[in-house]
């Protein structure tokens, strides 16, 4: 599974980075940088939460 962020939707609120610090850091303009996108099983719950809590519905988890 992979995490993808739609940059055209993302407004940089940063909720995702707080939930998925192992994957996402915020850049100097406060937009998320996806450092790795292969999602491990142990982070699936956190990732699902990020999907739910992103105010712009910009995050998706996709099968690969």
């Amino acid at each position: 599974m992979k995490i993808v962020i739609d940059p055209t939707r993302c407004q940089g609120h940063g909720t995702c980075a707080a939930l998925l610090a192992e994957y996402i850091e915020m850049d100097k303009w406060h937009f998320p940088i996806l450092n790795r996108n292969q999602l491990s099983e142990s982070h699936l719950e956190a990732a699902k939460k990020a999907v739910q809590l992103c105010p712009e519905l910009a995050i998706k988890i996709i099968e690969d």
Partner: protein
Amino acid sequence: MTDSTSTSIMAPSGARRLTLGWEASWKTSNPEIAFAGDSQGRMRLSLSEHISNYGRIPTGFTYSLVSDSLRVANLTGRGGAKFPFYKKLAAVYEADRKKGCYVVANGAESEPLSIKDSLLLKTNPHLVIDGLVMVAEVLGAKGVYIYVKDKEAHSAVNSALRERRERGFTEAKVSVIDAPATYVAGQETSVIRRIEKGPAVPKFSIDRVAVSGVKGQPTLLSNVETFAHLGLILRFGADWYRSGRSGFDSGSRLVSVSGAVDRPGLYEVSSGVAIGDILREAKAHSVRALLVGGYFGGWLNVRDENDLRVAYDDFTLGDKKLSIGAGILGVLSKETCPVVEAASIVDYLAEQSAGQCGPCINGLPEISTAFARIALSSNIDRGISELKAVIPLVERRGGCQHPDGVIAHVRSTVAAFGDEIKLHKAGKCSVASSNHHSMLLPKKAQGNLAAASGR
């Protein structure tokens, strides 16, 4: 779909394939290069003229026949991506088409230096429509669209479609959609959104358009010129298209030539002619540099005649990290500093961001500012270190290819004009005049680079 005017038709030869019949006098001294006019209005070829030039419109194609012809012909998309067209067709054909599929000819031509797509549609719309409806029939497409840049192209296509209906052609219905005059309007996903009646700005998608395009269904989208070549290949065959040449795409192509030339305009050239030969016909003078492919293309540093002996094909250009791209040759004379010109273009492109994605909105102005510091020699070291810091924050982080295209332009400038940048570092410039009037930017976009460098 039949027509009674069947005379024996000769397959076109040399450099006049798409432009056959536009105007008899448009030959040049080189049989491999034809002048095809400038951006001024030209007469549209009527359906009868079209048929007497190229012969009747063939029918009854199967997928495998079209696919085999395209593979043997080695036709690549003419919008700049160099992708073999038969592979694109296969991706759509093999995708899940149960809910229908779509075929789109992209004539948005958002590269300001390009005139080919609009001129092709204005003068020879039937050839584009032929290729489009043939492939739409093979795929059983649910919708067929031509996306056009201006009113003239729109009305030429509409008139052509009316002629076909009046002749009783039973073929796929084609709709004409207008593209707004913005740089991002020609991006694949912008075209899709516009057809879906949305704004012509890019949309983020994990899937390729071939799998998920218009209304989420498989979509064959290519440049209008690609479909015109298809109209010829399906008439005269793949072997004719290759004309004994091997290698990459061996057909003719349309090239928009602009800048420091006395005869700017559109040229149709045979594959592999030397760039210098094209420039000779366009009457270029004191060439300092060449922008190859368009704003998303790259630069050729011209030190002497030898630099122009490059064959105009993607094989040869690829060695120099250049590509035919959208078929643009922009000529800079020795009166213009190429680095300043490049920085002006980058500044224009930064303003053309669709304003949707953080890294693009914030990053492109920073790239433009840093680059302007180098071009205007205001603070070169600072410019270079800023570029090094900001590019990784922008690259591959946009919702479309726009920011990556801008970065490619910056990289190509730095790679091509190391000599010039060194001069700037020493407080000099190869161009004496400090009056930097851009040669390759649209008039309305003549920006203020000095302001950018001071931001």
